[in-house]
């Protein structure tokens, strides 16, 4: 566009924000087993998630928006995982990596959670025991495509035509709504457009 007079483009702010989010996913790794090794390989130079703008592995949930559950989750670990999920700011996504995180795998025993999706929202499942790093990249790109559309399992999303389907229409929560929601855990987030609803994430461009 250099030298051109058309060095600008129009878009909605929402699209721009989603584009930025999708291309700067900051992962929070939760590696508890051999899947964690494959996850590390995916982050290293050979597979290199930096190509997808996702190389900033944050061991701090408050600076992350992509939780990668890679490995089996035991009874004692599940509250930890839930607390980490709670601490992550919205919008956030979750990848369930490998057979154990997705279904318990071969460990159908008293101590192992039979799939983390029973308790936290999961956006992408990765089969394999453990999955190869290519599978990890596939899941990452799936999450990217969801983020570009503004879809997250943890929050439903308002689109122009989804307003006719209230069950599917919940916007990205604003921080304001998030804090209000935390005061009363029993009530679901108010649907956008309702009388008590806060401003939804569909900010005017």
């Amino acid at each position, binding site marked *: 566009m250099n030298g051109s007079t058309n060095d600008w483009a129009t878009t909605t702010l929402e699209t721009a924000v989603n584009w930025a989010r999708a291309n700067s996913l900051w992962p929070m790794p939760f590696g508890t087993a051999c899947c964690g090794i494959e996850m590390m390989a995916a982050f290293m130079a050979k597979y290199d998630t930096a190509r997808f703008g996702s190389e900033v592995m944050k061991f701090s949930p408050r600076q992350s928006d992509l939780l990668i559950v890679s490995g089996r989750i035991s*009874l*004692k670990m*599940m*509250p930890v995982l*839930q607390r980490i*999920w*709670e601490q992550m700011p919205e919008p956030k996504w979750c990848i369930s990596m490998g057979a154990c995180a997705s279904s318990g795998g071969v460990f*159908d*025993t*008293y*101590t*192992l*959670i*039979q799939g983390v999706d*029973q*308790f*936290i*929202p999961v956006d992408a499942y990765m089969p394999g025991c453990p999955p190869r790093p290519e599978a990890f990249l596939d899941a990452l790109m799936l999450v990217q495509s969801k983020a570009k559309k503004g879809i997250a*399992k*943890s*929050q*439903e999303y308002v689109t122009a035509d989804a307003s006719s389907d209230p069950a599917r229409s*919940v916007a990205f929560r604003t921080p304001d709504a*998030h804090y209000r*929601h*935390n005061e009363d*855990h*029993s*009530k*679901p*987030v108010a649907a956008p457009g309702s009388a008590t609803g806060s401003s939804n994430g569909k900010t005017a461009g």
Partner: protein
Amino acid sequence: MEAMITYKPENHLALIAKVEAFAGERLLGREEKSHYHQFKVKGQDAKALIRFLRDDPSLAFAQFIDLTAVDYLKYPVAQPERFGVITTLLSPVLGIRVQVKAFVSGEEPRIPTITDLYSGANWTEREVWDLYGIEFLGHPDLKRILMPDDYEGHPLRKDYPLKGRGERGNFPVYHATTQKGGT
């Protein structure tokens, strides 16, 4: 330089003779495994035998290797009691490993602690308490070490259901529209 641990048959014979002389009638049985000896006693006699193995200067089982347990419920071969608490010791002097298998009843699974003899037994005894429910009398800090503190039951017992009693499904569910909330 001579290797630190060498196989000397006379050491093994001396060990067996000494233990048999010490334990006498209290020795329920003895087995020779591929690379160690196993002495079977009742739970109340185990600590005296372990103390003897440790303190006898010619035996000197100074090193505590491991402590674990077996649940013989549903075991095809009849055993003196339901639980066997197995202590593994090593004598650097003799180059011999020894297991002391102490049988503990299923009704009142209790056995004296050996943490005063080997402080390394502290966590292993907690593990056996956690998973088998065998109480170690005199243990300084007998609480769960692997399972959550509020867990009920002892899951490695043979009468504990393999898939648990529903503990693994007992967590709050994070719904799409309720960040905290119901199940």
